[in-house]
């Protein structure tokens, strides 16, 4: 347990500290976002090297990775749809908005502006909730992984092909990178087609 604690304490502490600073300290947020983007580029570059070095192991695990990737993608979509129905019922909000925000799968830059077209209030919820989903995945993945194993990749939704790929490989191993990449890729491709259909639901 002590080793587990050592692994997931730093991401959670850093996340909590960042969130509190963001809430209580006024910082030039555009600059902060720019720094985050630069770190993302660095992270993707480093992860690229890790993937490249292990390409022989990756080829060996590719078939299992594809199978798991397809299962994870299906799970993400089923989980998002159930959550949409559940939250719509609990908060008495329109089903179309609830489903659109839930199915956002962490892709805040798509869902926020898209939902805002129909209703700016839900657009704000969609943007921040999906931004937080990405941040939770980054900070809680080591903890969730220690309990659920590979299924915990589903938490990342669309972000597992870029932003959260680094932490997934860091904590679950290179053999799960193909599953994560495939999950993120499929959701990223289908989401722009699904969202407009959801908005016509009443």
């Amino acid at each position, binding site marked *: 347990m002590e080793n587990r604690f050592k692994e997931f304490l730093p991401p959670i502490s*850093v*996340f909590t*500290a*960042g*969130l*509190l*600073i*963001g*809430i209580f300290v006024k*910082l030039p*947020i555009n600059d*902060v*976002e720019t720094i*985050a*983007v630069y*770190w*993302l580029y*660095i*992270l*993707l570059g480093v*992860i*690229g*090297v*890790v993937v*490249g*070095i*292990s*390409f022989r192991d990756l080829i060996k695990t590719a078939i299992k990775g594809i199978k798991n990737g397809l*299962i*994870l993608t*299906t*799970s*993400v979509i*089923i989980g*998002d749809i*159930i959550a*949409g129905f559940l*939250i719509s019922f*609990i908060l008495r909000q329109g089903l179309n908005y609830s489903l659109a925000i*839930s199915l956002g*799968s962490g892709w805040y830059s798509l869902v926020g502006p898209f939902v805002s077209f129909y209703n700016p*209030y839900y657009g704000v919820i969609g*943007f*921040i*909730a999906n931004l*937080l*989903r990405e*941040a*939770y995945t*980054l900070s809680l993945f080591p903890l969730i*992984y220690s309990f*659920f194993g590979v*299924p*915990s*990749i*589903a*938490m990342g*939704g669309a972000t597992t092909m870029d932003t959260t790929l*680094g932490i997934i490989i*860091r904590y679950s191993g290179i053999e799960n990178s193909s599953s994560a990449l495939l999950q993120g890729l499929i959701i990223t491709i289908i989401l722009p087609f699904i969202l407009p259909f959801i908005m016509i639901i009443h």
Partner: protein
Amino acid sequence: MISDELLYAFLLIGILIGILINLGKKVNEKTSKTLNLLTTISVLDLIFFMAITAGDYISRYLTGSEGINLIYSILLYSIVPGFLGVIVASIIIGGKHGK
């Protein structure tokens, strides 16, 4: 603003460098430790700056009763879908497939 082209260019260049290192048989324990450390540092920095951004957006809507409803909605939408996805995946894949 993230440039997708730049993002995937970094990933592809990294993969090419990694393949070259692998083919040149220059992978040793020191390389693995350095890459591990670099990944940890960049992951933690990314989490920190993403959390500041999320905190800043939340602080803009923290005032009044409408703010409380908004925060309540944001919390539910940010936590429930991800966790349900993990539970569904656990049921389909079955048990713990990890460490």
